[in-house]
């Protein structure tokens, strides 16, 4: 069967700068794929192209074999792609469950209904989603008073509302306490296992990446430089050079001293 997500030669240039350079990869069903790389490697640009926030300069994005290149975020969402944000984006004037209900209303095409009470619609479904991320008991709290980790979990529930086949998570654990990070990734891994969702995520926390990702891709200066299992990536000299430095700075110092 075809991959859930496939990119061919994805490229983005800003003026003279090539932020993402000829990136091609595939994501299989129920796979948890990590995209890592140092700051400025092009992870976010890559993500924004997948989600439709940015149009690629060249290349193609295929969702289950069908091209989605250049579609708007809304259209891509409708095709079964969910996403979570690096900095949470939530409806701060609503309760937790209403945040999820809103996504469900949109999913069921009920946004332009004027007569029914929104807070009574799809409540069961929303509760089930919240239960899955362990937020059911907080369903009726005002989401503005939640802890950041809880907001992230709520956002995950929102992203799962339309039963996506693919979930894109942009630094899912950014800004969280270490214990929360592990819990969130365990939850994500469990959802991948239970529901067969494919997940592509970017991450800076290597513990999170190595503990849960099925496969890891490394991006540097816009290009994919390595791909493989946790052990392979850990042992890859090129990756070590990118993350720990290739000795250019200290090497140069030594030469200068000598």
């Amino acid at each position, binding site marked *: 069967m075809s991959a859930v997500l496939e990119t061919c030669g994805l490229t983005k240039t800003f003026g003279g700068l090539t932020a993402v350079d000829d990136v091609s990869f595939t994501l299989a069903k129920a796979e948890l794929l990590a995209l890592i790389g140092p700051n400025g490697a092009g992870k976010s640009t890559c993500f924004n192209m997948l989600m439709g926030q940015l149009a690629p300069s060249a290349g193609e994005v295929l969702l289950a074999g069908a091209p989605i290149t250049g579609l708007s975020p809304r259209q891509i969402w409708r095709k079964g792609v969910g996403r979570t944000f690096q900095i949470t984006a939530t409806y701060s004037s609503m309760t937790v469950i209403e945040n999820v*209900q809103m996504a469900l209303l949109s999913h069921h095409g009920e946004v332009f209904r004027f007569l029914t009470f929104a807070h009574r619609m799809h409540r069961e479904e929303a509760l089930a989603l919240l239960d899955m991320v362990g937020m059911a008991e907080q369903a009726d709290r005002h989401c503005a008073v939640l802890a950041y980790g809880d907001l992230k979990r709520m956002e995950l529930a929102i992203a799962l509302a339309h039963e996506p086949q693919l979930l894109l998570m942009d630094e899912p654990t950014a800004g969280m306490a270490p214990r929360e990070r592990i819990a969130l990734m365990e939850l994500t891994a469990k959802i991948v296992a239970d529901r067969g969702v494919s997940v592509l995520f970017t991450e800076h926390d290597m513990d999170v990446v190595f503990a849960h990702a099925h496969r890891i891709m490394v991006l540097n200066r816009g290009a994919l430089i390595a791909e493989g299992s946790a052990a392979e990536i850990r042992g890859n000299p090129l990756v070590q050079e990118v993350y720990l430095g290739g000795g250019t700075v200290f090497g140069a110092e030594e030469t200068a001293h000598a």
Partner: protein
Amino acid sequence: MEFFVAQILTGLANASSLFLVACGLSLIFGVTRIVNFAHGSLYMLGAYTGYTFMQVLPGAVGFWTAILLAGLTVGLIGMLVEMLVLRPVYRAPELFQLVATFGVILVVQDLTLMIWGPEDLLGPRAPGLRGVYRIMGEPIPKYDIVLLILTPFVALALWYLIARTRVGVLVRAATQDREMVGALGVNQAWLFTGVFALGSALAGLGGALQLPKGGADLLMDFTILAPIFVVVVIGGMGSLPGAYLAAILISVLNVFGVTYLPQSTLVLMYVVMVVVLMIRPYGLLGREEVAGEHGQVGEPETPIKPASGPVRLMVIAGLAVLALVPVFGSTFAQVLLTDIVIFCLFAASLHFLLGLGGLVSFGHAAYYGGGAYIAALMVKHAGSPMEAAFLLAPLGAGLAALAIGWVCLRLTGVYFAMLTLAFAQLIWSLVFQWGEVTGGDDGIVNIWPADWLNGTTIYYYFALALSVGGIIVLRHVAHSPFGYALRAARDSARQAEATGIDTRRVQLVAFGFAGMMGGVAGGLFVFSKGSVFPNELEIVRSFDALIVVFLGGVKTLAGGVAGGAFFKGIEDLLTRFEYWRLVMGLLIIFVVIVAPEGIVGSLRKAASRLGILKTAEQT
């Protein structure tokens, strides 16, 4: 050709005072992000104080000294206003300061009336500059030539101040990133005060300088307000060269308009503004605003719930009392209450946009007055029965709102607000100047309801039923999926778009819906009064609604209605006194400073503190 040159010279001369006032406004906005509606009042004060100084100081030296002194005095007044009124509310939600500046307008109006009296003052001619110069055979007043030469120098001086001095560096830095400037150890409070004083001084100078051309009167604060906003917005908010360019553009255009299309001078100005903003949304020389998700500064709004049983009972009891008013109340009470419920519907329709949608429309009167005019025009020109005219009012207003919203929603924040204002003013100027159809300033009279509704009591019930019905519909929609989507688009457009909600479409429909409800209020209004005049479309009317929504409480569902009822009631009481504006202005400033959550918000807070009202979250 000669005539052409003379026209352009006159235009340039007119631009000078406009530029001075507008660049003061632009400066203030650029640094403090305050949309200072009181700027026209400062201009008026400049003219009046300048007049007084000129009476005292003799000769040419006295004349020019008086102008400078007027600038200085108004600068000091501006400083006072900033310190007393604006400083306490910098932390209040965005655009809340605007309401405070409106309070200042009212206060200044009455103080001016007290000090200088109601008569228009004829400006003294500039000594030694009484005659005309002949340029290519065309007479140009000498004073115009002086102004024309003077303005570039003032502009240059300002440019030097902004571009070449340390103060200027701070001001420019603050226009770009206030927080950073604060973090670098600059005392922001004094920087703001200083800029506000400078901007005010410029307004004062502008007011005093135009004395020989226009004199001083009590209406000049609002007369200048619209043009200076047009200039600032066309030029790009915060840009001084932009303001200069736009002032010249508008003034020259105006002079030619007077010659060739005398009925359309006002319309022309707003058409130019709309066209410029559609092509360059941030003005000719303005920079793009990076709009973050900061529509809701301050505490986030609490989740809304449909009214509980006891609240519903209270509302029903209140309605029962209102329904019984004709039994025990006077005719006057019925007329007053008719006014109040209509105004409440108007305010509630704006609140729907402002509160739920976070869409600050400065031109909501367009739909209220528009609805009223549509009904009146139908009756007058098409001879249509009242019922048909009444149905067309909301329909037409809703369609107009859809069209205007479609254009305006491409912008956000202050620029959105300004564009809505421009459209409202465009409609106002059309009605004002297209005398043959709309009756112009004389309005349209003799628009009475159908026979079955003709009578104070029956119309009272009609207005009550439709207004309360409209308010209930607005409230109900707030709880519907659509209302939720509108709040979602306000809270986080990013998330809403990422979950398949077409935020612009949602906002557009909301704009049309709110416009339609405003149209219902307008239709009710015209048949209750039997007439309609252009002032129902004026900025002042839009501000009325904005103020009651802000003061009632933007972040509470009942804010619009409560504010509307409270202030319309208070206004009726106050207008019996001579200086009611002063009291009203002070009251507005007081509420803004003491209760920035608005009436409903503050009551709710007090109630939950006392334990009467249970909040979902007792933290």
